[in-house]
């Protein structure tokens, strides 16, 4: 295996779980998340040497992932949204409050536009800076700020999430 292929293999091994989690938050579906990450990695591989030279590879892969998801949302699964219904997780004891919040979160994520969802996930879950999110989405930092504000406003509509969001924007 040459150095380039080895570098790609190491990247996949190190980051595939993190990428899948992000994809799961974007899609709300593990099968789609896996498909999305594989698609993004497959698009990155033939250009890996150039990506390594010119860009942060993870930023590049995440950019492909978000753009691909936007395309899929428009074309392949138009009109379908992740179900806000809770899967059959156990909701025992003091987990009930968190489960309720997750139900609300799932519904709220489903109500966001693709770009709002991407900004929220990349900014809050992946902890990227506004500048990094702007690079992923290929837009201005101001657009990231505005989109994040819109996303949080939608989350704030839920009483269960409002408290979290209020703390978020302080």
């Amino acid at each position, binding site marked *: 295996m040459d150095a380039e292929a080895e570098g790609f293999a190491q990247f996949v091994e190190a980051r595939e779980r993190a990428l899948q989690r992000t994809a799961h938050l974007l899609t709300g579906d*593990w099968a789609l998340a896996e498909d999305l990450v594989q698609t993004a990695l497959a*698009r990155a591989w*033939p250009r890996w040497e150039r990506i390594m030279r010119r860009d942060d590879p993870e930023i590049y892969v995440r950019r492909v992932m978000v753009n691909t998801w936007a395309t899929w949302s428009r074309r392949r699964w138009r009109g379908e949204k992740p179900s806000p219904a809770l899967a059959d997780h156990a909701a025992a004891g003091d987990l009930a409050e968190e489960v309720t919040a997750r139900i609300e979160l799932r519904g709220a994520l489903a109500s966001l536009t693709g770009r709002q969802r991407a900004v929220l996930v990349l900014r809050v879950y992946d902890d990227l800076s506004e500048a990094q999110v702007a690079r992923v989405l290929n837009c201005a930092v101001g657009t990231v700020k505005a989109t994040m504000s819109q996303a949080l406003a939608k989350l704030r509509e839920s009483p269960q999430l409002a408290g979290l969001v209020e703390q978020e924007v302080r």
Partner: protein
Amino acid sequence: MDRRLRDLLSAEAGDPPHQITVEAVRRRVARRRAREGAAVAAAALLAAGLGTALAAGAVGNPAAGPAKVTRPSTVYVLSSDGTLTPIPAATSRPGKPIPVGGEDQVMAITPDGKTIYVDGDGPNTVIPVSTVTDTAGKPIKVGRQATQILITPDGKTAYVLDAFGTITPIATATNTPGKPIKVGMTTGSSNQMAIMPDGKTLYVVSWTPSPLPSSSYVIPIATATNTPGKPIKIEGANSVEIVMNPDGRTAYVLGASRTGVKIIPIATATNTAGRPVSDGDAVGELAITPGGQILYIVGHGPLGVVPFATATNTPGKLIKVGGIADTIAVTPDGKTAYVSSQPPMTGEPNCAAQTGEVTPIPTATNVPGRPIRVGCVPFFLAITPDGKTVWVSSGNGKVTPISTATNTPGKPINIGGSITGIAVSP
């Protein structure tokens, strides 16, 4: 950023049920590369003023098992340009393409060879194509995004599995869909359903993402009633593919885990999973010889193929082929396995500078023969029922016949688009 919203998102993000391996990515790159290479070639031809567009290479499901020989074979080639092109094996001259629509397609042919079912234009339909008249019938509504079509040995039912874990049975006599069967999530691999030789039980690999950690199952479905039976739990691995031994006694599940690949035998008499056998580190493709003695695992390593002795449940020595192994087909007499492979991918597609191969492997010795050079991205393989010809998608929208008597390639036949599957009618 406040931790509470992030924690809630983290909980919602969950834990991925499957590991994404470099091998899985590589297989996807192979599909992309075939198309991109074709596009490059087509653009070059157009730039050179050669007129009509050439097209892509590519992918799809390997052909189903051998069918009864009743008349001269016709090879059907599915293309991403939305056509199914018949090629009489006797003349190797392509006929008029049949419009079927669609892009990412799968197909299956009935045992009598009279009908081919193709997933249609849009994600929700399957199209029956009459091989008698070479015309497409009325689209049949099924679930979303078909990933495999399996036809029962008696030819009466076509089962269409979609990427979201729904199986739609289609009565082939009337081409009407029955009540969908839910089986949980599926993997998107080529062989997710397998059927008993008597057609009474259909097995499907499945997994459930919640509650975490995810669980993996094989679900038996009684074809008489189309009702799922008690799921067979697969411990320690996510089931990916399944193949049936032609003797009907055992189904073999390819399972992937973070520590490697496992083969799990399922006893069909009791519907119980046997002890998993660890075998390598890559998810490949499965094929079994007609006699059921050898299960071949492709993409192992991804250097070649591993023969798995079904009598003893033990993997044999790795059979290396040139480049990276992709798909496999076994001749109806069980004497030779053909494996397609292509050069390692380390850069942009370059069909002008690289050559793919098909390697014959005598099943008696498992010593690879001299590789047959075909096109740049060979992928799909289908063998005629008389065993005389292997058809392979060879990149740039072409298919190439290979004589099994001499293991030499014939003249490539231009189809166009990106080849997404090959089937042979009896």
